[in-house]
């Protein structure tokens, strides 16, 4: 894999962001709304990719980080009456603290044990949501009231339920996380993460504290996922336990695998692809998950590195 010059890499990513911005004006109404949702979910996938793609740690519990952001922001608005920025901050804080704690405990394991431990913690988180139903709304979830979903700057206020505002907010978050991800993976720290993925013992031998680096990656990954969850609660107005279920731990893994693990834009492509496969096939058959499964099998067989990963492998070796 050759390295792209900084200008080339940033130009590609800024171009992608510009394209998404332009699409805001061109897309039909339905796809405009869908893309806003996909960008928020792609942030979840980018957070997952940070750990899975670059550090090689396969977690089956990232729904808890998404859920931490979702409930951290949602409950702050619903139960405490906080403003949107404060609630978003609360969501991020919940995700950061939770990922730090989970990282400290789960990183004592590796491989299959890491998968199981993260899945078990996520299950505890999910069941805790059900157990504290009086505050969380249990399995039914809660609505974030429409009047509370307003972003105020002095005398100006932006209604997050407005499709254009929502799209721009989703794009802003997506762009910020994309550029942060790109900066991290191109940094010295990012190279250490890849080194850990490739050969942890050798990285240790070279003098790096792999535990601290992995812990930082878990926190960054968990916080990004929480940002996605917080944005979902505030932009789409629903906080529910299904988003913390095991299904939502597996989904980002699939999105990343589809788009291309350890590629910065792969998570977006994977999320987009998966969304439309479900959206289109569910209109023709109730066995649409079978089609999704077949599509995944074919991809794994013929494009084991995912869509963007395969493109990088075969044609564009410089893709970050």
């Amino acid at each position, binding site marked *: 894999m050759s390295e792209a010059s900084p200008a080339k890499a940033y130009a590609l990513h800024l171009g992608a962001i510009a394209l998404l911005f332009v699409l805001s004006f061109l897309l039909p109404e339905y*796809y405009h*709304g869908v893309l806003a949702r996909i960008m928020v979910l792609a942030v979840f996938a980018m957070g997952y990719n940070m750990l899975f793609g670059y550090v090689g740690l396969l977690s089956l519990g990232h729904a808890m980080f998404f859920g931490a952001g979702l409930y951290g922001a949602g409950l702050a608005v619903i139960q405490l009456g906080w403003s949107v920025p404060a609630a978003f901050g609360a969501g991020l804080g919940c995700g950061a603290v939770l990922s730090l704690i989970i990282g400290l405990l789960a990183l004592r394991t590796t491989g299959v044990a890491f998968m199981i431990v993260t899945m078990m913690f996520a299950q505890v988180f999910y069941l805790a949501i059900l157990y504290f139903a009086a505050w969380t709304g249990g*399995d039914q979830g809660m609505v974030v009231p429409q009047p509370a979903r307003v972003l105020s700057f002095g005398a100006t206020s932006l209604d997050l339920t407005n499709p254009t505002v929502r799209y721009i907010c989703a794009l802003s978050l997506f762009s910020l996380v994309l550029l942060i991800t790109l900066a991290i993976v191109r940094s010295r720290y990012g190279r250490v993460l890849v080194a850990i993925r490739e050969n942890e013992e050798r990285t240790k031998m070279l003098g790096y504290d792999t535990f601290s680096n992995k812990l930082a990656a878990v926190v960054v990954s968990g916080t990004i996922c929480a940002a996605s969850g917080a944005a979902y609660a505030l932009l789409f107005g629903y906080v*529910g336990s*299904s988003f913390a279920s095991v299904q939502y731990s597996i989904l980002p893994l699939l999105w990343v695998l589809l788009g291309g693990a350890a590629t910065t834009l792969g998570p977006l492509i994977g999320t987009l692809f998966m969304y439309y496969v479900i959206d289109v096939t*569910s*209109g023709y058959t109730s066995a649409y998950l079978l089609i999704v499964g077949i599509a995944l099998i074919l991809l794994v067989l013929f494009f084991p590195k995912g869509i963007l990963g395969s493109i990088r492998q075969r044609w564009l070796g410089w893709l970050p």
Partner: protein
Amino acid sequence: MTDKNGFFDLSKTTLTRRNALKGLAAGAGLAMAPGFVRYSQAQSSAPIKIGFQSHRTGIGAAYGRWYEKTTAAAIKAINAAGGINGRQVEVIIEDDGTDPGRGAEVVGKFATQHKTDIVFGTLFSHVVIGSAPAAGEAKMPYFVVSEGHHVASTKLNRYVFQPGITDVKSQIQSMAPWIAANAGKKVTQIFPDFAFGYDHRDYLPPALKAQGAEVIAQIAIPPTESSFTKYFPQIPAETEVIYHVMVGPAVLTFVKELGEFYGSNRPQLFGFIDSLEATDINSPGLEFLDGSHFWEGSPRYAQPDDSAAQKAYRAAVGIDDNGAAVGDPKDVSTAAHMFGCWETLYVVKKAMEDAGYKGPEDRAKLVEATEALKEFAEGPEHPQGPKTFNGKIHQCFGIQNISKVEGGKLKVVHKTKIEDGLYEAEGDYTTQAL
């Protein structure tokens, strides 16, 4: 009924987006005018489009299938009688996977791609709650058939209605007088440890207390549990009635193990048929339920005193005297709930006619016309029974049935009054802006 999907169907959607681009629209206005006139003329005779948010897959699939059958039958009857405001009605189905996230996406799809006039038909509470914000933001009237208390709680928004089926709070409240008078005064509740169970946990004790009875124990069973024997010793010995609302596949095991625990000397049993919707009451293991009582919204089995409207409804939907699909006795329906689809569609018809509804621009009028409705008389449009409607909380109130398992069938032994299920309104949707 048709399924429609338009992948990047620009013909349906570009107009709205172009309107958003005012600068371009100013220049394009003249060129577009002839087409727009044609569209306006066509609209008066174009079908009314109802988006049906169906649980085709996921945990609600058994309900979803029967909700679709009932909806198809109602639409066929409505169209045969001239449609709504002289226009035929078309139903567009989208599967929500019984998932709240997908549910919200589906409501968005109905609003912005299919451009339906309303969205209808959702059952599972978490999907309703997850989808309600999307409906409110799109200003899309959203008629659910869920029986959850979420609509009447006034925690959702002004566009969400439940006019065709009573809510669980009302159902529980109206069961209490019969339980206290006929089954026993000391009640132990066994319920699943999630929201459906919590409604029963929270609403039954005060309702029984008002009738001079009491809940002496509440046993919550985790949804992941597959064996129940260990919970039964928690049932107090003085229990006169076991009130059970277990749902899901584990219910057969639950009943079987309860039978093994008590043998022939059991307390009275009272349950909600939700546990056994789409399940044959004569399934192996359910023998223990013989002689027990169930709540039913609408009776599964044909009753000797069925009204002509009830008979016609059953025939139209295609269920036999045992509540199974005509020609397939094993395909048991969700009769206690699915009538809500039929009745809701007739409420929509009435409200659209009252509002003089012409198209999506009249959605606010439709909301107000629905809120203005007061009562629905028993008849072909409301075969389950008469109902009143509270426009402030967007919820109907009706009669309930209590049925006894007898000879492998459910026989209605008591019908409650509408008043039994009335309660104080918890808010007022009509104060919210449209």
